[in-house]
C-alpha cells in the first residue's frame, strides 16, 4: 500500500504524472448482456482513464447496475471484452476484478452494523491477506491510516450501526482504498445524504482524484453530475446514448438524453382566494422539544407550501407531528379556523389529513401485496356491502379508477407493488391517500428515487390536486422540485422557521445557497 503511494508520488515529482493521468484503467468494449431473452445492455463501450471522474447516468432500468456488475465481475457479459490495466478478459470473476483494483461501493455499503469503525475498515484487508489471528493494535493502525488518506476523523471504537449515513459512506470509501483501489465505483452514493454531506463527499472524491484514483459516479441527480463530472455517459434502455466531455452537457440536454424526449415543467401558479374564509390549516407556536420550536404558518386551500431544510432541521419531525405520529408538546393547530387536537394518527385521519412518507418502502406500502389492495387499504371500510363483507365489484371499480387517473404503468393491478418502478410505487402511495379524499396532504420527499420523467408527471399530479382545492405541504431538500411545485417555501434551520419565500421572488440558486449556509 504505502509502497504504491510512494511510487506514485515519486513519479509525480519526476513529472511522469502525465503518463499516469492519460493511462486507460478500464476499457469496456462492445458489451452486450441479456437476461432470459430480454436485452439489458446492447453494445455498450466505456473507457475510464486514471484519475478521471466519470459519471454514469440513466433512468431506472436503463442498464446502469448491469454495467456496474459486469465491471465488478458479478455478471458475465454475453458479448464484448473488458480490458483492465491492459489485461484482456472476456469474462471476469469478482476476485479478479478486486485484484485489478476495482472497488464497488454499493448503495447499502455492505458494512457490519455490529462491529466497530476500525474493524469494519480493516476486516476485508486482513481477510484478503489470509490472516488467521487478529492483532487489535494493527487493526486500529490500518483503520487510522485509511481514514487519514481521506482526511476524516471518526471515533474508531464507535459501532457502525449507530453512525449517520454520511459517516458510513466514508467508512466504505476508506475500506475500498485499503484494497489498493484504482477505480472506485459509487452506486447512487448521495441518495441518503444532505446537501452539506454531498459537498464534503465531493471534496473527498477530488482528493482521491489527486491520488490518481478514478471514480465512476452513478447517479440520477443531475445537479450533482454537473458539479463533479469530467466525462459523462448516458444510458437509455440498455443502449449508450452519448459519452462525452462533461462540458458539453447541461441539465436540459441530460434530461433529453435520459428520457428521449423534452420534459417541460411549468411552475405552479396559485390564484389567491380573496374571500374571507379562515385558512385550511393554521399552525401557531407549535413546539416539540428536541425537534422543532415555535412553528407558525398558514396553509390555504389550493396552496402548495414547501418546507425545506437540511437533514436534522426538524422538517420531518414537523410532518410527523402534524400527522399525529409524535404529537407536539405545545402550540395550537386549527383547521378551518377551529382549533383541533392531533394526538394520534387516527386524529389526523379523522381531520382529513394524509401523509405520504419519506420512505415508501417501509412506511408507505405493503410491498408483497397486490397493487390494487395497496390502493384501497385506507377505504375498505367504506366498501362494505350489506353483509359487512367487502363488495368486490365496487372495489375493482375503485382500483381501475385510480390506475387510470394516476396513469400507473402496470400490466395488471394484481401484481405485487414491489414489481413497480419507484415512480409508479409513489403513485400507488398517493392513490392510497387520495382514495380517502383528504383535504390536507403532507408529502415528505415525494420524489426520492423517482426517475426524471415520472417526477415531472408526479409534480403535475400534485399541481392538479391543489388546483382542485386541496392544501399540500411538501417537505423536501430538492430545491428544483420545490420551485416547480410550491407557491410558497419555508426554510427551517435547527428546528425553527428562519425565512419564508414566495416562489416568484426567489431563484433556485438563492434558495440552494440559503439552504446550505449554516
Amino acid at each position, binding site marked *: 500500500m504505502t509502497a504504491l503511494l510512494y511510487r506514485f508520488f515519486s513519479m509525480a515529482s519526476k513529472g511522469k504524472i502525465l503518463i499516469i493521468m492519460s493511462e486507460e484503467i478500464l476499457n469496456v468494449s462492445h458489451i452486450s448482456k441479456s437476461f432470459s431473452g430480454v436485452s439489458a445492455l446492447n453494445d455498450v463501450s466505456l473507457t475510464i482513464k486514471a484519475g478521471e471522474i466519470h459519471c454514469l447516468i440513466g433512468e431506472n432500468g436503463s442498464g446502469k447496475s448491469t454495467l456496474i456488475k459486469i465491471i465488478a465481475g458479478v455478471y458475465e457479459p454475453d458479448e464484448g471484452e473488458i480490458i483492465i490495466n491492459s489485461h484482456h478478459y472476456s469474462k471476469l470473476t469478482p*476476485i479478479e476484478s478486486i485484484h485489478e483494483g476495482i472497488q464497488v461501493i*454499493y448503495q*447499502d455499503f*455492505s*458494512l*457490519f*452494523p*455490529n*462491529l466497530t469503525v476500525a*474493524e469494519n475498515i480493516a*476486516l*476485508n484487508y*486482513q*481477510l*484478503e491477506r489470509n*490472516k*488467521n*489471528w*487478529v492483532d487489535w493494535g494493527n487493526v486500529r493502525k490500518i483503520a487510522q491510516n485509511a481514514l487519514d488518506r481521506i482526511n476524516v476523523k471518526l471515533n474508531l471504537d464507535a459501532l457502525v450501526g*449507530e453512525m*449517520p449515513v454520511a459517516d458510513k459512506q466514508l467508512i466504505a470509501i476508506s475500506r475500498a482504498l485499503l484494497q489498493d483501489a484504482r477505480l472506485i465505483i459509487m452506486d447512487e452514493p448521495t441518495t441518503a445524504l444532505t446537501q452539506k454531506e454531498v459537498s464534503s463527499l465531493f471534496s473527498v472524491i477530488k482528493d482521491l482524484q489527486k491520488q490518481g484514483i478514478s471514480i465512476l459516479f452513478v447517479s440520477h441527480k443531475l445537479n450533482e453530475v454537473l458539479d463533479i463530472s469530467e466525462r459523462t455517459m448516458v444510458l437509455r434502455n440498455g443502449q449508450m446514448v452519448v459519452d462525452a466531455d462533461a462540458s458539453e452537457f447541461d441539465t436540459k440536454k441530460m434530461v433529453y438524453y435520459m428520457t428521449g424526449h423534452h420534459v417541460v415543467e411549468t411552475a405552479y401558479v396559485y390564484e389567491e382566494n380573496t374571500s374571507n374564509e379562515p385558512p385550511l390549516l393554521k399552525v401557531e407556536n407549535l413546539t416539540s422539544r*428536541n*425537534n*422543532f420550536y415555535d412553528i407558525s404558518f398558514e396553509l390555504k386551500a389550493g396552496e402548495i407550501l414547501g418546507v425545506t431544510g437540511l*437533514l*436534522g*432541521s*426538524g422538517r420531518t*419531525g414537523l410532518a410527523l407531528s402534524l400527522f399525529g405520529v409524535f404529537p407536539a408538546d405545545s402550540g395550537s393547530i386549527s383547521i378551518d379556523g377551529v382549533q383541533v387536537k392531533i394526538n394520534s394518527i387516527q386524529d389526523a385521519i379523522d381531520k382529513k389529513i394524509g401523509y405520504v412518507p419519506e420512505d415508501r418502502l417501509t412506511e408507505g406500502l405493503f410491498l408483497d401485496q397486490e397493487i390494487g389492495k395497496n390502493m384501497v387499504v385506507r377505504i375498505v371500510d367504506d366498501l362494505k356491502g350489506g353483509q359487512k363483507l367487502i363488495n368486490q365489484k365496487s372495489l375493482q371499480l375503485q382500483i381501475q379508477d385510480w390506475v387510470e387517473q394516476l396513469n400507473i404503468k402496470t400490466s395488471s393491478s394484481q401484481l405485487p407493488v414491489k414489481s413497480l418502478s419507484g415512480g409508479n410505487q409513489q403513485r400507488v402511495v398517493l392513490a392510497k391517500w387520495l382514495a380517502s379524499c383528504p383535504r390536507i396532504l403532507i408529502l415528505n420527499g415525494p420524489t426520492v428515487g423517482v426517475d426524471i420523467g415520472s417526477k415531472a408527471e408526479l409534480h403535475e399530479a400534485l399541481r392538479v390536486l391543489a388546483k382542485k382545492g386541496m392544501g399540500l405541504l411538501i417537505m423536501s431538500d430538492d430545491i428544483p422540485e420545490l420551485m416547480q411545485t410550491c407557491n410558497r417555501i419555508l426554510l427551517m434551520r*435547527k*428546528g425553527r422557521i428562519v425565512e419564508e419565500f414566495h416562489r416568484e421572488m426567489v431563484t433556485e440558486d438563492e434558495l440552494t445557497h440559503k439552504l446550505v449556509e449554516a
Partner: protein
Amino acid sequence: MFKNLLNKTEFLVGLTLVVMSLIIGIINPAFFSIANLFDILRSATVIGIFAMGVLIVIISGGVDVSFTAIGIFGLYVTVKLLKAWQFEGSVVVALAIAGAIGLVLGLINGFFISRFKLPTLIVTLGTSALFQGFMLFFIGSDYIRDIPAGMAKFSMANLVTITQVDGSKSNLHAGVLILVAAAIIVFIMLKYTMLGRGIYALGGSRESAERAGFNIRKIEFTIYGFVGLLSGIAGVTFGSLMRQANPFSIVGTELDVIAAVVLGGASITGGRGSVVGALLGVLLITVMNNSLILLGIPSDWQKAVVGIILIIGTGLPAIQNRQAERRMNATLAE
C-alpha cells in the same frame, strides 16, 4: 465512564447477580458459605459448557436447540461403548469419544444448514428429535446407573477441598476445569481469530460477510461442528457428575441455556454477545434455580421468576437502545 459501564449488558447482569446474592444472603446467611459457592459452581458447570457453544451459534445469527440431544447421545453411546469394552482407564477417553460423536452430529447440522440454507431453528429442531429417536430405538433406552470406572473416578475428583471449623468438608469439583478451558478457548477464538470475527460478521450481515470474502460455508460447518463437540463433552461431564446415564435427561433444558446466553447480552438476532456475559448469565440462572428455594419460594414459582428476569433482562437493553436512538435524533435536530 460510569454511564458507559451502565450501558454494558455484562455490567447489568453482574449487578443483578450481586444484588440478588445480597438479598438471598441477608434472608438466609447460609448462602454466603464456601459450600454453597462450590455447589453453585458445580451446578453451573454443565449448563456453562453448553452455553459456550450456544453463544457462538447465537452470535452467528442462528439458534441451536439440538445440543442437549447431542449431549445425551454422546454420553449414552460413550457409556455403552466403554462398558462393552470393559474400559477402566481415564475419563479423558470418555470425553474424547463423546466429543468425537458430538462433532459428527454437529457436522450433520452444519451440512443441512450450509448446504440447503435452511433456517437453523428448524434444522436443529428436526435433528434434535432425530438424534434422540435414533438413540432410543437403535442404541437403547435403559437407565444405566453403573457408569465406567474412569467416569466414576472423575465424579469424585475434587479440585479444592476446604475443611470447615465443624469438621465438615466442602469440595469444588474438578469438572469446573472443563468449563474454564471451554470458556478460554471460545474467548480467544471469538476475539482474536479471523474465524471468530467472521462469526460476528456473519451475525451482523450475512450479505456483507459474503461480499467481504468470508467463506460462509466453512464458518457454518465450524460453528455447528464445534457446538456438537462441546455438547458431547458436556454430556459426559453431566453423566459423571450425576453418576448415571439416563437417556431421558438433559433434553428439555435447552431453553434454560439459551435464556442464560441471551440474558448475558447475546442478541438473538445475531452479531452481539460475549463469553463474560454468557458466563454471568449462566451464574444468574444457576443461582436462581439453586437458591430461590433458600428464600422459601416454591419450586414452581422459580420458573416464573426466571421468566420475569428474562423478560426484564432482555427488555431493558432494548428500551435503552431506543432511548439512545432518540437522543441521537435529538442531537441531530439541535
